[in-house]
């Protein structure tokens, strides 16, 4: 419980709240778009580099490979069950997009969880950064395969869309590429490299995370407001409720799955938390961008709102400390 309050009371989380409040009181506070983009690149660079250096100081054994494999397998498996559940209520394209979204991961949730562990001086292993990077693509590919198999063929944008291109994009997507690349460089240069970039990579990490989460709070709250408006206007109100239920239950269900696997793998406290957070989070950067191209008929008002405006804050504020408490209780 103190961990729970500890998380809520840490500057990064409070800045997320502040961003939400800015939208609520209709303040015109705004982080310039290019700066927000740069902050997100910084976080990927820093976490990747840190992970790589940590990796260079440990041994990569069978259990590491098992964990990476398990991460990829989960990111391919989760979309399958998600798709069939969602399809009962939603059009095939939307179901596939949501499936891909939740199979993939949220880098910022991961980064925040890593910061949460750092603040509490709990160790975590660098290879989990690799796990994060490896979980982006399988979900995208499975999501599209599902749609192509169960949905009607011949979507209109197909003229602009080729499988080869899409696989390339999901493998070498900017975020995935930067994080893997930084990890590799951290791994090659080790602690010598770290000593050169430490003030940037470690010193500024939590401070810049505050500013980034401030922006995320603004963006998430705006999107939530938009979708509420849309729900009210369409007189139904039903979709928002459905979205809320799905976007709150999916992280919990997936966290349970992740927790079981982490337990089977015998991960340490810190590693288990990061693993669970990866499984429980949903993408709102790489996957939505891929979905706009491959499944343009899927409505981002569904999948993006769910992952960005509901699941992301939920994991950030409640998920991380709750998953942590469960891990402590279990281990």
């Amino acid at each position, binding site marked *: 419980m103190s961990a729970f309050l500890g998380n809520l009371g840490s500057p990064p989380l409070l800045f997320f709240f502040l961003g939400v409040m800015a939208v609520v009181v209709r303040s015109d506070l705004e982080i310039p*778009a290019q700066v927000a983009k740069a902050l997100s690149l910084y976080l990927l660079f820093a976490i990747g580099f840190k992970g790589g250096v940590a990796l260079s100081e440990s041994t990569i054994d069978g259990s590491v490979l098992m964990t990476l494999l398990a991460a990829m397998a989960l990111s391919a498996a989760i979309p399958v069950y998600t798709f069939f559940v969602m399809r009962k209520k939603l059009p095939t394209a939307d179901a596939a997009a949501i499936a891909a979204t939740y199979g993939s991961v949220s880098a910022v949730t991961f980064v925040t969880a890593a910061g949460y562990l750092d603040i509490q001086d709990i160790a975590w292993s660098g290879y989990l950064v690799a796990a994060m990077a490896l979980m982006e693509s399988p979900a995208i590919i499975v999501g599209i395969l599902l749609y192509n198999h169960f949905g009607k063929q011949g979507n209109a*944008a197909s*003229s602009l869309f080729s499988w080869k291109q899409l696989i390339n994009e999901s493998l070498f997507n900017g975020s995935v590429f930067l994080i893997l690349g930084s990890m590799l460089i951290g791994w090659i240069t080790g602690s010598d490299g770290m000593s050169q970039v430490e003030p940037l990579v470690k010193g500024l990490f939590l401070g810049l995370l505050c500013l980034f989460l401030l922006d995320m709070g603004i963006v998430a709250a705006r999107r939530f407001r938009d979708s509420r408006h*849309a729900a009210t206007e369409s007189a139904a109100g039903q979709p928002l409720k459905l979205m809320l239920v799905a976007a709150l239950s999916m992280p919990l269900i997936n966290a349970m799955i992740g927790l079981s696997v982490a337990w089977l793998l015998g991960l340490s406290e810190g590693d288990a938390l990061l693993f669970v957070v990866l499984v429980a989070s949903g993408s709102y*950067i790489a996957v939505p961008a891929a979905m706009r191209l491959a499944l343009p008929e899927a409505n981002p008002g569904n999948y993006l709102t769910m992952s960005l405006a509901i699941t992301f804050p939920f994991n950030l504020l409640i998920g991380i400390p709750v998953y942590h408490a469960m891990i402590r209780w279990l281990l």
Partner: protein
Amino acid sequence: MKTCKRIEIVIETPLARRLATRLRELGAPGFTLIPEVRGAGDRGERRADELSGDSSNCLILIACDDQATVDRILDAVRPLLSSSGGVCLVSDALWLRH
């Protein structure tokens, strides 16, 4: 000065990037792309504030003096607009020859 068609397309950033690379194949003599444009239409607001850039629009401007090419471009744009939204306007202009 030569008469030409001035084609103006507003479309989401991820699609605009692809469209731009296709324009050459369709025979467009060139194009100009204004990135990070905001807007609102049938599909709600696009604020150009999302991190993936997928909720911002681009405005693509094409001057084209060959009607067959114009038609080819419009045929390529039409299905994009139907599935992903956006706007395409065509007007007459004079192209300064140099």
